């Protein structure tokens, strides 16, 4: 691992326990995040993207599921740490802005007591210093210090999301994981929050794993993008490389956004069929039943996580990617 890598996930898998036995929801997931970079993780509901975020921060409870593989945060393997060692890492080295972070604030406590809780539990007991740090952070996310005396219900969705981001930055973490942080917000507020994240990220140099179902948003904000489907990573590459995606699923996904601004929108085809049922996934490539390029082998052979030679570190999981003619996603099919 080079010094430049903040997070290296290697062969990660996660099972959830169900009444009919464990089901595999994440399988063979490997990727890296470099210092100061935003990696966007895209996928539909049930694809396993939020589970990846939870596994990386060890939030999968032993009663709910189990995980395996390695999660290297610099020189520590999070997957192997005990609870005590984990406490030292959470918030300080890696923090998470949870899905609908607005609901992860305690409704009966003022914002300042919630900041205080985190600071105190990490041994920072100087009230005056703590208050100064809170004010600094709250102003950093473009809110006024009055917000500290408010209860969560007195703030708008966008303001609550800013508070959650400020909390995540309390201890200057190297990596911030954001799980659909803007999904519940309106487009304009979403844009404001995303600009704020980019500004802070440039200022402080932390890395971000940004999870979203909105591939269009990720391609406009991230440095690199990874696409998940049925528990597997299907493709990873830089935003520039995604101008010519290699995996049929990535292509189909990009085609399913109606383009805005073009005069006279022409009819487009969606992706036929439905996403796989994790309890009963199709054999071979998870996408083959819906893929317009699938062959017989696709239903039986599991494609490997293949590096694309001569293309930086673009990777793709498809046995036919070389045979499929390259086309730009901006054109019609």
């Amino acid at each position, binding site marked *: 691992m080079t010094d430049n890598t903040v997070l290296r996930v290697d062969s990660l898998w996660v099972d959830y326990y169900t009444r009919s036995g464990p089901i595999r929801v994440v399988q063979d997931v490997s990727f890296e995040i470099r210092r100061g970079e935003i990696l966007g993780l895209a996928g539909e*509901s049930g694809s396993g993207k939020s589970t990846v975020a939870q596994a990386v921060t060890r939030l999968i409870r032993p009663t709910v599921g189990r995980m395996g593989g390695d999660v290297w945060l610099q020189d520590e393997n999070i997957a192997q740490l005990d609870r005590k060692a984990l406490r030292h890492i959470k918030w300080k080295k890696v923090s998470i802005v949870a899905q609908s972070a607005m609901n992860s604030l305690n409704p009966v406590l003022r914002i300042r007591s919630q900041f205080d809780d985190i600071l105190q539990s990490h041994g920072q007991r100087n009230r005056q210093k703590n208050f100064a740090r809170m004010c600094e952070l709250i102003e950093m996310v473009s809110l*006024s210090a009055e917000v500290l005396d408010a209860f969560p219900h007195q703030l708008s969705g966008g*303001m609550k999301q800013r508070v959650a981001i400020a909390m995540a930055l309390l201890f200057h973490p190297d990596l911030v994981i954001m799980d659909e942080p803007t999904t519940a917000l309106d487009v304009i507020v979403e844009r404001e929050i995303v600009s704020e994240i980019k500004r802070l990220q440039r200022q402080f140099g932390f890395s971000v794993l940004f999870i979203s179902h909105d591939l269009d948003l990720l391609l406009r904000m991230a440095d690199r993008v990874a696409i998940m489907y049925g528990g597997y990573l299907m493709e990873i590459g830089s935003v520039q490389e995604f101008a010519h995606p290699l995996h049929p699923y990535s292509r189909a996904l990009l085609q399913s956004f*109606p383009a805005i601004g073009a005069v006279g929108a022409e009819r487009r085809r969606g992706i036929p069929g439905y996403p796989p049922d994790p309890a009963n996934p199709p054999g071979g490539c998870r996408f083959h039943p*819906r893929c317009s390029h699938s062959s017989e082998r696709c239903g039986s052979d599991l494609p490997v996580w293949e590096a694309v030679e001569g293309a930086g570190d673009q990777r793709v999981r498809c046995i036919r990617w070389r045979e499929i003619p390259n086309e730009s996603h901006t054109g019609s099919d």
Partner: protein
Amino acid sequence: MNRTQALIELQNVSKRYRRRTAGSARDTYAMRSVNLAIRPGEVVALVGESGSGKSTTGAIIAGLETPTSGSVVFVGDTLPSRLSGDRLKDYRRRVQIIFQDPFSSLNPVHTIGYHLMRPLLIHKVAASRAVALQAAEGLLEAVGLQPAANYLRKMPHQLSGGQRQRVGIARVLATNPELLVADEPTSMLDVSLRLDIMNLLLDLRDKRQLGMLYITHDLSGAHYMADRIMVMYRGMIVEEGLSGVLLSSPSHPYTQILMNALTRDITGLEDIPSPVDTQSAEQGCSFASRCPHRMAVCVSELPDWATVAEGHRVNCHLYSCSS
């Protein structure tokens, strides 16, 4: 402009909600003097953020809410302030609504067949249960759920979100409506399924000459679906026009910001407007408190409509003052 008679017309419709907070009552206008018309075979998109009043507009058209002032004209007849009896039943048959959430709009204890047969029997579209059963199969086929007989026996929890939304659409088609209100029908669905549902709605429009109010917060979806787009902000329609015309030259400052949010690169270096939500002035333009081009007149007076191009109007002082 199309000369056919409008299916539905809202004339100066306002909707006020009383909000009571600890002793004081404050009025919130969900709609302020909204004018809107939908013709047969026409899809009109109503675009806005949450709280803009777009769902209230849909509820008024669907007959689920009544306006505080203004009138609703349905195929030439002005509706009474409160519909009842046969007239209400007739209206419900001819105007149907598709809800946003396919997970909560189906009753979990009833089969798909039950959901589809109920409107058929209530509105006497089918004379007997046997006929209704057959009609229900036909409806499922019309929305692409095949083999239909299998789906009739299923319970809602056995279907995926996309399949449930198709059932929701099949159900509204049961009564052969002339007008559909689709309230964010794809926002709860996965990206790969959205286009399918949009295409299904467009096909139904083509086949049945349905009029449709397509409510959405997504401008690109509106562009794909609609003949005309109306942009709403805090109860006011701020801009309206033919889809292509409006989107190629968005004129209201709000629409412009909305377009930028969707199309420009996110650099993180620009000025970020204050997130603090300020209440809009009662008399002036709804958007005045957030508008980058605000003038004195914007906070004191309601703007007038100005025509910017053929089939493209904007409700903004910037355009009425300059002339």
